[in-house]
């Protein structure tokens, strides 16, 4: 089971304040689907606004990135720059 960490804002809004979960998902697409199932409404927001960091590596347009069973996955706001 991968360790999933949401921002506290998302946790408050969708997950009753909880921000950490153990979820099994092979890739980011499936992970978002699993989260949407648990917390309806969170999926589109994750897709629209969030990057993910899988084991420290940030992906700005995550979709098919694989998630290992022991991975640590953070959802983060997307970053741009000047």
């Amino acid at each position: 089971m991968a360790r999933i960490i949401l921002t506290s804002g998302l946790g408050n809004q969708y997950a009753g304040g909880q921000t950490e979960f153990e979820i099994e998902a092979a890739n980011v697409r499936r992970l978002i689907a699993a989260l949407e199932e648990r917390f309806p409404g969170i999926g589109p927001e994750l897709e629209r606004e969030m990057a993910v960091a899988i084991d420290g590596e940030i992906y700005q347009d995550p979709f098919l990135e694989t998630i290992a069973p022991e991975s640590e996955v953070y959802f983060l706001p997307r970053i741009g720059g000047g």
Partner: protein
Amino acid sequence: MTSENGELKWVGKSPIRPDGADKVTGRAKFGADLMLPGMLVGKVLRSPHAHAKIKSIDTSKAEALPGVKAVVTSADMAEMQPEWVAAGEVQINFLDLSNNILASGKVLYDGHAVAAVAATNSAIANAALELIEVDYEVLPHVIDVEEAMAPDAPILHDDMFTQGVTPTPDKPSNVFKEVDIAVGDVEAGFAKADLIVERSFKTAAVHQGYIEPHAAVASFSEDGQAELWCCTQGHFTVRAYCAKLLGMDLSDLRVTASEIGGGFGGKTTVYLEPVALLLSRKAGRPVRAVMTREEVFRASGPTSGASTWAKIGVTKDGKIVAGEAILKYQAGAFASSPIQPGCMCAFAPYDVENVKVKGYDVVSNRPKVAAYRAPGAPISEHAVESVLDEIAKKLGIDPLELREKNAAKEGTNAAYGPKFGPIGFADTLAAAKAHPHYSAPLGPNQGRGVASGFWFNIGGESCATLNVGEDGTLVLATGSPDIGGSRASMAIMAAETLGIDVADVRPIVADTASLGYTFLTGGSRVTFATGMAVIEASKQVIETLRERAAKIWDISIDAVIWEDGFAKPAGANAGEFEPMSLGEIAAQAGKTGGPISANSSINAEGAGPGFGTHICDVEVDLETGAVTVLRYTAVQDCGKAIHKAYVEGQIQGGAAQGIGWALNEEYIYNDEGRLDNPGFLDYRIPVASDLPMIDTVIVEVANPNHPYGVRGVGEVPIIPPMAAVGNAIDSAIGVRMTDLPMSPPKILAALDNGS
């Protein structure tokens, strides 16, 4: 990829830029330099009010003026729905974007565009603007971020209900959203602290200050296809936004990026581009629209001004046990400021177990903010770096040592969550400490300050096409507008990869019809991401060259290696044939399968975070409050400098902008909510005589995700200066300045108050 002995031939050198000759002779064509036959002059009517209802707009008199060919208002734009798209950290809502291009219903800031005209010359266009009658009902306005958050503040948007709070409020507010970042337990952390320092700060809204005003030339044809030339950091972004706002297909709009006279984030969105298109469509003639400097200041994005507060707890040996911050950022008249990265970056350089950051994204009657170098980060890191300086003083610890004790390293969980990979923060601290500047003596009323900075850097989508000419020279096309010499870096990476002379690679910026989608030039991504596309295309060309050589020699491709710009027979065939140069193979391309070219389309992930540490010496005139920056040194981990001189230049330029932010730059509004200093006379960016030489030290801790180790460069150097200058002033006069800019009147007042 490298030559036999592993040495790099071009990477890290500073060859003369391929576009240089045109830039030093005046030949280079910037946004306002293009002229087309029959071209009209486009000009924009702007609101004189900070906040007003538009009761009516009557354009009939303007339309009747001889020489006027088109007048447009928001009614000419496609109808938009509130649709959010990710656009870096400052999100774009198409409805807001549309309303910012040409106001609909209300004007929300001084300078807000209301209507536009196209006429045969600029005098007629100006006269036409004066004939447009707009009936305004002036509304109360609010400029300051804290005042905008007050319960009785004038509300800009009746449909804005603060996001990020549960339950969603039922009363509209100027707070677009609240953001929270929390790691560990700050209360428990502070309980363990031997020393806690907290302080509030204010930073001014500052403009990117590029010297070239926005400019666009649009030409619509009768069949609905259009061409657009403009100075932009991202012509694919311009295409996307304009097509949406005009209801066009992407393929019907061809956007060419002209040379661009600076951007720094400010040219990542659209202002004039859709207006020029609308006018051209209506007039049936090409239209050129160019902003005046006043318009640039009044109506194009500055970055947020903010109110910030930081609180840090440390043990007596200097270990940070908790960090907390509250950040209130101006978004301008429409939602979305860089509050998210502001929150994420605040404590990012440090290994802190307990962090809590609260952010507010607040609208007020100011122009909508746009990205500016490391958006959001300089503001929040200024607060933290200033408080750290106070802590160092109170503990009697050297400020660089305090940072070393707490510096994030590979494997540290960043204050915004995930673990860092290989990073070079500690290396920048060590290099700063070892620099002769850090131990040089100081005179009376002089002081020295240090500060550090962090930025994520990004990758993203990029394309590159490499076409090999039959004479062996190459044209390298990318979709990344070149603001600071990136064509030189692209040519270097292609030449290095191919093992050929950099002068044989001619890099160009291709238009949107000639290359695949490429995300904009920003976020310090081009040398990293577009560079990866270039390297990828170069490798593909090498594969083709090996294949062609194999055909010519009639041996297997596996028996051909590519080395130092030559195909060489290898293995069993080694020495059997004379090595063939790229040119020799290219000359026979027609016979061996046709032209040699490659196209690479990637989404580059794995950008390497950047860190910098700056040292600043100042002298303060105790009688006038004037601050002179005596000496400045900027140390930065760049991963790998591809074009060394332009890397240094990026660092020097960023530092200079940060010094301007620290000392003199600010948006000044009068009581009516009008911008009082919309020009370079009173919006005071540093001039040559204000600055010393800016010494740079490039640290290279390779980013393992890039073939040459590149991290981004351009964002980080604007982050440390505000705190470095403030810390130096405190060191000189024993006064902590909390209100930016630290202009002479404020310093003199602070000296007099002894605060």
